[in-house]
């Protein structure tokens, strides 16, 4: 069975006012081929729906285990899309396909496509360079995982590995990223202290700043607040809502209220399948599928 989910809000789909806004760094992802040419072509045409990525018939295998089954959906640009579902249903697996994290481990296999726009390339194609992909698609993990380096060096990390040498540029970008992550005021006098001296919530905002420093187009959040207290959680949620002005966000969460607060769209997954996808307000008030309703009302999961 092939399920395709499209956005049920027609005004969103043809919103051409945001055309071209969400193409920050135009690094070509394709390591071979005429990727640069194609993305140039795309940017100059007016064929720009606000779709940032489209998943088509995605299957994923851990060795012999099929963890994702024929998932198809669209990711709207400059919106927050939440992934919900019971533990083990494949949310993290799905998220980690976008930045090709599975490539790090032997035995993983992708089938299907994740098309990234405006480049219109398949992120899962063998000729796509995972390293370039990860520069454009950032990730924030469940547990804050700053490097055992100073606060400054954590945020500068992505700039340094992409070869940025100009001190002035690095300083400006680090400050901007820390401001964007709402952390600057708290750390500006202690930039050279170890990142591990920060509180959990500050560490998570530092990880967000670290990701933002290289100006990604999509940021993937995998349960970013599950290790944090309610106040730190609130500040991260606020941040996510602000960030969507500039980036497209996918967030895995176990917290229904959180999905309701931050996301415009919600995907409900169950046993590796995408059961239902739509606007968050609709999913939470009028779920179309029995499994979704059961999950949302807490009858299982």
């Amino acid at each position, binding site marked *: 069975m092939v399920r395709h989910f499209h956005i049920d809000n027609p005004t969103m789909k043809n919103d051409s006012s945001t055309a071209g806004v969400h193409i920050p760094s135009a690094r070509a992802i394709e390591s071979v081929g005429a990727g640069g040419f194609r993305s140039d072509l795309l940017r100059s045409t007016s064929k720009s729906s606000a779709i940032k990525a489209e998943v088509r018939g995605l299957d994923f295998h851990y060795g012999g285990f099929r963890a994702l089954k024929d998932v198809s959906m669209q990711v709207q640009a400059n919106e927050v899309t939440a992934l919900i579902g019971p533990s083990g249903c494949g949310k993290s697996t799905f998220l980690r396909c976008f930045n090709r994290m599975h490539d*790090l481990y032997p035995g993983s296999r992708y089938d299907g496509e994740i098309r990234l726009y405006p480049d219109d390339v398949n992120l899962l194609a063998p000729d796509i360079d995972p390293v370039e992909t*990860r*520069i454009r698609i950032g990730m924030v*993990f469940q547990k804050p*995982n*700053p*490097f055992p*380096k100073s606060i400054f060096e954590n945020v500068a990390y992505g700039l*340094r590995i992409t070869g940025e040498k100009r001190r002035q540029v690095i300083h400006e970008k680090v400050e901007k990223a820390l401001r964007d992550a709402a952390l600057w005021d708290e750390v500006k006098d202690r930039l050279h202290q170890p990142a591990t001296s920060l509180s959990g919530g500050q560490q998570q905002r530092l990880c967000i700043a670290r990701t933002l420093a*290289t100006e990604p187009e999509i940021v993937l959040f995998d349960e970013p607040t599950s290790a944090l207290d309610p106040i730190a959680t609130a500040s991260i949620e606020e941040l996510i809502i602000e960030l969507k002005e500039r980036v497209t966000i996918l967030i895995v969460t176990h917290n229904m209220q959180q999905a309701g607060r931050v996301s415009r769209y919600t995907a409900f997954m169950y046993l590796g399948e995408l059961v239902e996808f739509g606007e968050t307000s609709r999913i939470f008030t009028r779920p179309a599928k029995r499994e979704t309703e059961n999950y949302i009302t807490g009858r299982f999961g």
Partner: protein
Amino acid sequence: MSASAVKNATALPGRRGLRRSRLARPSEFVAESLLLFAALSAVAITLGIVFILVRESAAFFTHVPIVDFLTDIQWTPLFESPRYGILPLLAGTLTVSLVALAFAVPVGTITAVYLSEFASPRLRETVKPVLELLSGVPTVVFGYFALLFVTPLLQKLVPGLPGFNMLGPGIVIGIMIVPYISSLSEDAMRAVPMHLREASFAMGASRLQTAVRVVLPAATSGVVASYILAVSRAVGETMVVAIAAGQQPNLTFDPTEAAATITAFIVQVAMGDLPHGSIGYQSIFAAGLTLFLLTLSFNVLGWFVRRRYREAY
């Protein structure tokens, strides 16, 4: 509930009392005592060795002023008019150890990075035991390897290199201690949690960048500890230098010259025919004490490094 009621409750027939008693678990008591005894005897033996070192050295220092020992630039205990300056032996020991480290630190660290971050599990499981076999080879074999193979090879590269020199044995000791560095550093690097590597990869870092910029710094304390263990091992190495370095105390830091180290001198005298109790014989205890203090300070340094760079992931 009153206190007496509690007392009654514990005394109920058929119930075990709550009070601690050594007799409750006799086998455990015996095992504990045996373990304590074993631990104490190890400490006692160590203290005994230190005691003998200090006592014999004290006897030596009643004949040779400690200032001469530390400042005289000649070590000639076997001569008619003996001189007892430790500096030449110390210089030999340090030079050989530095040569060994100059070889082993880069080779060992690169090997560890490769095994931990790049090699397939199968390759790692093959290479590691083979490397560790190196430390099972008797050191006398390494000594003749230095004398009969490495030095002739070096003589082709360094014209005028004498048959006895510190470079050859230094490199061979370096080869010997590579497994200490590679094995311990690899353990330290593999102990770096996966989520740190993932954070780095997710930023778009390559494997090499992740290894050098994240994993290695995160494993600093273990890696430096492995260097320090390797230094202690190099400083204490005896056979290789006794065979291949020339056994002539020589105040120099030039590795192409022949020299003797503290350990080489100790075996030379211990196996020679100096009468027990003579000053020459006692000098090996003073030399041994110096070696002991040297290694002890490396260990203390290692302890501080571990504490200073305690991993906080």
